[in-house]
């Protein structure tokens, strides 16, 4: 019985491999195009020209730096606010009134196009000039809720007895927080930070509405290059970004793997 259970259904396996293949086709095509003399002609020959051109185009450096800075700042803001929320609401999380629960879910459920436009109206009404700061705040406005849920999970794993023991040993509330609670929730905070950073770095639509005319992030730059039409520069950039995301996933997996090894050993 055991053996038949482990064997994968060939039909299921086929769908899996076809799906993975199709998932990668557009990405591999972008990479392939980077190295073609004419990106839209498969037989036009191999070249490094487009990739080299990318490194000489300063017009992409600025959006990249903006995206990184906005990501770091908005993730830090979201982790601060979201962790505050989880710490404060943890004890009540099972008995929260529906209104508060809906308020927390609202940024996750609201379509980005509504979030972006409503924030735009909000900033315009308050006469706040659109730019770097508005994008940072806008990104943190929706990622804080994601961080809150991650932190809530992290706090659930925390043994409540630890704080009680610390209290019995004479620790004051702030000491309990800094010496017991914080070190234990730090991994969750890092996870939340990474998620918030990814959400910000990946975001197009909310930046599109809240960035104003002067500021460009990387996704905004890609969008405007796409609008112009084919630019081989864009393919070079795609190649680079696919490499980065592959590297990040492999890094995360290998870290996870090594942690498992340590735990076993």
């Amino acid at each position: 019985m055991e053996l038949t259970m482990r064997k994968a259904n060939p039909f299921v396996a086929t769908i899996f491999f076809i799906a993975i293949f199709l998932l990668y086709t557009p990405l591999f095509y972008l990479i392939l195009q980077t190295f073609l003399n004419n990106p839209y002609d498969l037989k036009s020959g191999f070249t490094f020209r487009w990739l080299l051109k990318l490194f000489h185009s300063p017009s992409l450096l600025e959006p990249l730096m903006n995206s990184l800075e906005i990501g770091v700042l908005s993730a830090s803001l979201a982790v601060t606010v979201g962790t505050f929320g989880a710490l404060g609401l943890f004890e009540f999380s099972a008995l929260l009134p529906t209104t508060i629960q809906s308020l927390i879910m609202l940024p996750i459920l609201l379509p980005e196009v509504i979030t972006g436009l409503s924030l735009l109206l909000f900033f315009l009404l308050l006469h706040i000039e659109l730019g770097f700061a508005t994008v940072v705040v806008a990104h943190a406005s929706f990622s804080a809720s994601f961080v809150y849920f991650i932190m809530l999970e992290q706090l659930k794993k925390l043994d409540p007895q630890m704080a009680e023991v610390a209290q019995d040993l004479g620790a004051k509330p702030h000491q309990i927080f800094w010496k017991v609670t914080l070190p234990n929730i730090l991994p969750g905070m890092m996870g939340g930070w990474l998620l918030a950073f990814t959400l910000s770095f990946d975001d197009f639509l909310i930046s599109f509405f809240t960035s104003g005319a002067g500021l460009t992030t990387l996704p905004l730059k890609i969008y405007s290059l796409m609008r112009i039409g084919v630019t081989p520069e864009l393919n070079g950039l795609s190649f680079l970004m696919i490499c980065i995301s592959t590297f990040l996933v492999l890094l995360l997996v290998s870290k996870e793997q090594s942690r498992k090894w340590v735990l076993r050993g």
Partner: protein
Amino acid sequence: MNTPLKSSKPIPLTALVFIGWLFLMTFIPFLIILGMSFLERTPLGTISFHLSFNNYLRSFQYIYIKVLLKTVWLALVATLSCLAIGFPVAYYLARSRGWLKQLGLVLLFIPFWTNFILRVYGLVSLLGNHGLINQLLLEWGLIKTPLEILYTRTGVYLGLLYNYLPFLVVPIFSSLEKLDPALREAGFDLGANRIQVFWKVVVPNIKEGVFVGSLFVFIPMLGEYVIPDLLGGAKEAFLGNVMVSQFFVMQDWPFGSAIAGMLSLLLLITLWIQTRWSRIGGFRNGIDNAKS
């Protein structure tokens, strides 16, 4: 933990920071856009502060209802297609072991982590008239003129399917992972065959997670803007595209806001149907599944 003593404590200040943040940065802007939908644009292009329902009456015109129905229909078909493909993919991953599972997860996560706009760009260049598909088909002599996929409804459908598939595989995978293998074994021991175990043991236990996972794909699809914009062109606008063009092209903010109101109503209806269908408590589980 749940002693009345603790629950009667006042809500701490730290929580107020978070609630205040949500109130100020999400709820108030949302109220502003809803409020705007009840105002009216004057012929001069300014906004008159008179309460009116005209925008909503206008949104019931045939052209807007058609866009609404198309949005719901395409989102629904794409969600069901994601489910049909995503389920076997997640099932295969959950049932495999060792390095194969690791590799499968890595393969799934790389596109997931690749920039969204870039994934759309990949599809645009793949499906275009000079893209890989048409190049190969022309080369092999299967077609005489390039297939029109880009800037059609098929293009939008493929875009939705391609971009949202990983987002559905992950929650299905995690609810399959949470399933206790002893349950399946008990089913086999009691004499059920594989098909019976699948339908009577596996499906009832993961139904909730799969349902909420589908909802978390369906809802953002309803509000999609980028995919119809870049893969569908002007003909295949979703509600989100009509809304944005009312804001930036027509300069009619109140009417654009009314479309936002309509989209929000659509969301509320979806969520209402969801809560009606699922048992109380199942929703929370499902949300946890969708997140992890």
